[in-house]
């Protein structure tokens, strides 16, 4: 039967570093437009943050860019609406988290290097995947609702 191993707590495990510690650019606005309306031949700007997708004389729908900003999180996203004002898709354009960290104690980290992993640890510069308490996307969901309410009857 497995016995647990108690790890000695490190003296200085991690220290938070200046934001942004974790940022990903997924899509540009143009890429998001194209992805939402692949058959569109043009995107006519309607206001500062919305574009009408058109193919010839036909309106295919509307795409709206928005962002939600919080204490530690900053997210750009787009909502594509079909002409009936229904949500066609939602895409995250950019995700920036002013949290993350830099692991300084190499000897502490060394104990986590798997026997099967020959690769050296490179912690600091490239934190791309974080696991922990479940992250809430509540604010984006609320933002999407606001966009549907504001733009739902303007997508035709």
């Amino acid at each position, binding site marked *: *039967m*497995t016995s*647990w191993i108690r*790890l000695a*707590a490190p003296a200085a495990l991690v220290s938070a570093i200046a934001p942004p510690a974790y940022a990903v650019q997924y899509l540009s606005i143009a890429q998001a437009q194209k992805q939402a309306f692949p058959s569109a031949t043009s995107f006519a700007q309607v206001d500062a943050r919305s574009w009408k997708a058109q193919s010839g004389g036909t309106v295919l729908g509307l795409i709206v860019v928005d962002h939600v900003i919080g204490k530690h999180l900053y997210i750009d996203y787009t909502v594509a609406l079909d002409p009936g004002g229904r949500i066609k898709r939602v895409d995250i354009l950019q995700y920036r988290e002013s949290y993350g960290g830099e692991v300084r104690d190499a000897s502490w980290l060394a104990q986590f290097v798997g026997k099967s992993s020959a*690769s050296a640890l490179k912690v600091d510069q490239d934190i791309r995947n974080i696991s*922990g308490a479940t992250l809430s*996307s509540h604010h984006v969901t609320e933002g999407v609702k606001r966009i549907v309410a504001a733009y739902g009857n303007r997508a035709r």
Partner: protein
Amino acid sequence: MATARDRLRRAKPLLGTFVEIAVANAAHDVMAAAVEDAFDAIARVHRCMSFHDAASDVSRLNQHAAAGAVTVDPWTFQVLEAAVELHRRSAGLFDVGIAPVLQEAGLLPGPPCARPPGPLASSADDPIELLPGHRIRFRDRNVAIDLGGIAKGFAVDRALYALREHGLPQGMVNAGGDLAVFGAEPESVVIRHPLEPDQLVCQVQLANEALASSGGRLDLFESSSVARQAIIDPRTQEPPRAIAGVSVRAPSCVLADALTKVVMIQGEESAALLDHYQSSALVVSITGEILVTPGWLGGENLAA
């Protein structure tokens, strides 16, 4: 021909969190189509298993399955099969029938069930009946299920499967920290400290395996504090008190996700169950102590 530079990373808000899919080393259009299919798989899980959506399988079951068998999506059936199995093997500690208690505690919406809080069923007779033809019946009219402790992991597995079906050599699906990877290159994942979310506990290299963490909900828009966790010990009807956070490495994400709940409740006593599922765990106690199973350090939970 694909070059090493070919990689694609996309994210969407799904399952109440941010789902990120990253793929590499294939032609761009192949990767783009695979990622779309993978997100569709997650959206299907979301549709079928959301507790909050009145049209979901879960809502239909909670309304009607006590009165008679309800036909569900084959995926919902698979998740319930896994849930019933885990319920049995964990001696009732993994319990998707905990929804009434979560409602009572304000962790799920909706009016609390009429029944008083208390154990839903003895582990001898599982309250969920799995019938042929993807039909489900509840043996007890007071049963209400919530698949929040297992559906996210299942969604990650389905999305990863969709990527594989497109023949991609490499991929990762990360649903807000519950993630799975496949391919030759290991992915590096850091684990947030459950008590101090701006700090990291450790880093692991994952190859052809899954990792999930539990320890509450974190709203980075508003604060850095970890909100109360939606895990309830079925024996006490209370949240576990000794453990602040848990991460589990397992051959699949559905297992990793579900096992975090058992380890949160059972702590060190969960070792046998972890062994059974070829899984390993890292536990952070509320006093900040860190415990791991030997497999966690060895990274030997490679999927077959």
